[in-house]
């Protein structure tokens, strides 16, 4: 009887082990990939219509064309708010949730409110990504994450160019844009150990080029000894450069700022702008599309792809 019990227990154990092992044997990792059998629709919502995003869009369309050769059709839609308005951008996110795209990627204009809408998109089953400006670790992000470091690097560059002496001005962009605010923090931290560098001017240009021109002109009038400007976004180094060049002070006043819009690069090459910190926008668009396809296919993808940034100086004009 005891032997029979032992035999039955052995059989039960063997059956249990076989049952556990069966799914493992049947499952290949390739089975975890879902083939794409329809055209995928991806929506990008930037902060605002801006030439900076044109390069991101180029990268996204290039990725779509490349994927089409592989047999994966992707329709990339850019839903661009005409103005940098938080309410407008959130309305667009909401409207696009209703559209039920296969992927949604948002450049957060406002961390707090955007996250709420992005959570709703995720809850609706949409593959929800973020790009350009980081807002939450809950969503995969593609872009330059460390805005503080960009500001710090540009601050260190200005200190180096001015030999640690001189009055400087800050064009602070939009006071509610987290990346602008972080860059200014980084810039101030970089110059704080150099008492010879004195911030005599700090004004928001609201990411409007004309305002940046006017503010720089005012700053030069109010502080005739001003030696440098820091621009916290893509528009204001151009605005500062236009004002400085119009005043005939190219090369006398150093300008450092963000991004590599064509006009900004021209100003670098003619010596009006000293240095730019350029993000890799094309890569941001390209990888965002690739990752959204990966999400639809069931592949793994990184939660954080830091595309970084690099200095652009006159040396790059050769």
């Amino acid at each position: 009887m005891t032997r029979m019990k032992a035999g039955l227990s052995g059989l039960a154990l063997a059956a249990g082990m076989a049952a556990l092992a069966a799914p493992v044997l049947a499952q290949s990792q390739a089975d975890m990939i879902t083939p794409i059998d329809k055209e995928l629709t991806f929506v990008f919502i930037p902060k605002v219509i801006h030439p900076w995003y044109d390069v991101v869009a180029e990268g996204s369309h290039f990725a779509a064309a490349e994927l089409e050769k592989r047999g994966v059709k992707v329709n990339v839609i850019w839903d661009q708010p005409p103005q940098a308005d938080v309410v407008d951008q959130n309305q667009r996110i909401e409207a696009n949730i209703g559209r039920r795209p296969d992927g949604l990627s948002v450049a957060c204009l406002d961390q707090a409110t955007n996250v709420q809408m992005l959570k709703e998109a995720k809850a609706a089953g949409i593959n929800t990504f973020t790009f350009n400006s980081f807002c939450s670790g809950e969503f995969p992000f593609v872009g330059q994450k460390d805005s503080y470091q960009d500001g710090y690097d540009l601050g260190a560059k200005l200190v180096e160019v001015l030999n640690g002496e001189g009055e400087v001005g800050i064009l602070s962009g939009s006071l509610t844009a987290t990346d602008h605010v972080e860059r200014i923090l980084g810039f101030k931290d970089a110059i704080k150990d150099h008492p010879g560098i004195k911030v005599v001017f700090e004004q928001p240009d609201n990411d409007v080029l004309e305002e940046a021109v006017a503010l720089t002109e005012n700053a030069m009038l109010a502080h005739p000894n001003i030696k440098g400007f820091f621009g916290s976004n893509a528009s204001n180094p151009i605005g500062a450069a236009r004002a400085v060049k119009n005043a005939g002070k190219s090369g006398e006043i150093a300008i450092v700022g963000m991004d590599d819009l064509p006009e900004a690069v021209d100003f670098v090459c003619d010596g009006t702008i000293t240095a730019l910190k350029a993000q890799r926008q094309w890569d941001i668009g390209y990888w965002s599309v690739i990752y959204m396809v990966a999400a639809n296919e069931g592949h793994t993808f990184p939660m954080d792809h830091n595309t970084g940034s690099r200095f652009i100086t006159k040396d790059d004009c050769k």
Partner: protein
Amino acid sequence: MGDKMNTSRASLFSLQRFWRWEASGILVALVALALLLSIATDNFMSSYNISAVARQAAFVGLVALGQTLVLMVGGIDLSVGAAAGLSAIVGSIALTQWGIHPWLIVPFTMGFGLLIGAINGAFVAGLRLNPFIVTLATWEIFAGLTLVITGGYPIRPLGEAFGVFGKGEIFGVPVPVVIFLVAGAILIWVLGQTRFGRNIFALGGNRDAAVLAGIRVRWVEFAAFALAGMFAALAGILYASRMDAGQPSVGEGWLMGAITAAILGGTSLRGGQGSIVGTILGALLLAVLANGTVLLNVSGFWQRVIVGAVVLVAVLVDLLRRRSN
């Protein structure tokens, strides 16, 4: 034969009455646009989308209700967007730092809005200053104070208990939409059934005649501006509840939407004429238009052109209607 003629006469009469109504053009436009979008897109009529459109209309619509009152008395309030932002921030601080109960935050914020609206009212009605200039100045002051208080950072989180005002639903209808419709119904009653309502029309229609008729015009004008502040504050705090954050830049884009909704709804910029139903429909039309341009993949470059064109068409239709009447 006689019956048929009577029926057709009655139909013609109804049609004429409809055409005389300030908001007839906007209602036709709204129905036509909704039909077009439901045919042209797959998702317009989905319950999620309808709910989203109604909620979007509610926020700007609440601001527009206050703006309508101000326009009716012959004024204009450029500060409503900034008032919404400042009120939302003060309400968010009251909730997160002063420990005011979540259920009291909405009335508290409306009270604050009433107060800052009263500042406009005091300058315009009390000192007889130009409302355009006064509210241009207070717009800057309110927007600036918002940044001074917050340093540009949002105030969050506001908590789940408070979220019910912006995210909750009553029988499937979003709470902000219910509040918007109730506010609209109250204003319809006030304008149609109370002496204050009649005085608003009288003041906007002919100020001198209103003075001669013994109407306390300054009080009426003051109250209209104060109420505009209150409605803006209500919109601001409901939006904060919806987003779980008091956001400094909220309301920046609401000024144009509020004025446009009121004008689309038949409110005259010269005062003395307007319709709350029209403003509600105007806000709905703007929300449907914004939603439609997204769903139809209209380029962001064209969206403002389209909104401007719709306003021009609505104004032209209004002109035709008034001339034919």
